[in-house]
């Protein structure tokens, strides 16, 4: 049911964990729907220098989390903000229809982390 890319990111997730002294942290999802994603970022000069995730969720939730960290590392905040859940799903060669809504939240977590950073930075 999952693409090879999804399975690759699921079996070898990139950037698992929590960034130390994170510039921003975003958490989305809830236990009822079965997916919780927590993304932490380190921002320097408006560039995402480091990013890590922790995720409680299904294969799609973990793979999208992993993929989004790969997609944003080294990107400017502007670039990162343009990444959508659809971008992430596409980068994974698609997700099963049933997974498109609930488990495809990684970009939301990223945006929440950026927002958190901006709030803290007083931007």
């Amino acid at each position, binding site marked *: 049911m999952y693409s090879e890319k999804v399975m690759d990111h699921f079996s070898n997730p990139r950037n698992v964990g929590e960034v130390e002294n994170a510039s921003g942290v975003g958490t989305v999802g*809830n*236990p009822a729907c079965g997916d919780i994603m927590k993304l932490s970022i380190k921002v320097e000069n408006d560039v995402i220098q480091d990013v890590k*995730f922790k995720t409680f*969720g*299904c294969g799609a939730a973990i793979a999208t989390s992993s993929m989004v960290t790969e997609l944003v590392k080294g990107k400017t905040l502007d670039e990162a903000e343009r990444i959508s859940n659809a971008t992430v799903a596409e980068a994974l060669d698609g997700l099963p229809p*049933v997974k498109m809504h*609930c488990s495809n939240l990684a970009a939301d977590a990223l945006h929440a982390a950026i927002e958190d950073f901006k709030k803290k930075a007083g931007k």
Partner: protein
Amino acid sequence: MKKIYFDHNATTPVDPEVLDAMLPFLKEEFGNPSSIHWAGRNSRKAIEEGRDKVCRLLNCANLELIFTSSGTEGDNHAIKGVAYAKKEKGNHIITTKVEHPAVLNTCKHLAKDGFETTYLDVDSDGMIDLEVLKAAITPKTILISIMYANNETGVILPIKEIGDIAKARDVTFHTDAVQAAGKIPLDAQKLNVDLLTISGHKLYGPKGTGALFAKRGVRLVPLIHGGHHDRNRRGGTENVAGIAGLGKAAEIAMRDMEKESAQLSTLRNRIEKGLAEKIPHIKVNGHADKRLPNTANISFEFVEGESLLLNLDMKGIAASSGSACTSGSLEPSHVLLAMGLTHEMSHGSVRFSLGKSNTAGDVEYLIEIMPAIVERMRSMSPLYAGAK
């Protein structure tokens, strides 16, 4: 890679003896059982022999059996059949919160036709309260439908007691025995059940087969109208090979059940004990004793079930979370939620359901690889940190 199948509640392989029983009817014995000529006669005989065998498993009379194409069809036939037959008498149905979607969605559908359903709660063991059941019966109650054994947890419900209550109050009683049949002894006569559903592919028979026991005298509106098949109760040319296979599966179940049941419960208990010893924060779901011998349902706190299943699959182990029908969906198990588990714990459950082919080696392999899988997923979980 080694392949281990721990998902027998989802479906079972067809027993080679069953396939042998089917093959003649997929080859030379192809006639329509309704035909009077040579080609039809052996088909007719095969159906009657299949019927004999299934009836022996359920301890019922030949006239009391209707062949179906699945457990789901049997459940629909029983519930809609009684509802429509008795709609002049009342519109109230009682079932439980832990039934299979075949029952739940049928009741939900009937709501559109003016029927009302009471969904009984279960306790943390997955048991219903018989006093609550009694209190739920009203003069409008026409049907009680309560499963024999739960597909996710294996919990066995008190069918005999429910049957006695139903009989005393003159309410028709249906039990979905799809998971019980072949695993524990059934006796349609002793149980005071009016209707009982079984499915072929859960007891080493072919997919696309099933049967509904309908006690003599129980009025049932047919689900599928057509020719004179099965005494006008289910139209459609009979699946002769399927019925021959179902019959053989029933025969084998009768023969092997006792021995297998002992073996499977030993293996199942070893899984539960072995995993609990090695992995913290886990919980075995379902009543400790009143449970099918083959089913272990375990919640692994802080992690989600599907990701565990994918990891197990990568190691060659087939297991499931919730019912096969609902995997692929995103809802947590309605059964575990009804038992009072949190959403996280419901999401984090895995069902290991054992069967004939499983060995002690399979079980030890599972116990060996599972801790690392759980640990890896927990290390990725934002919920885990606090628990360490």
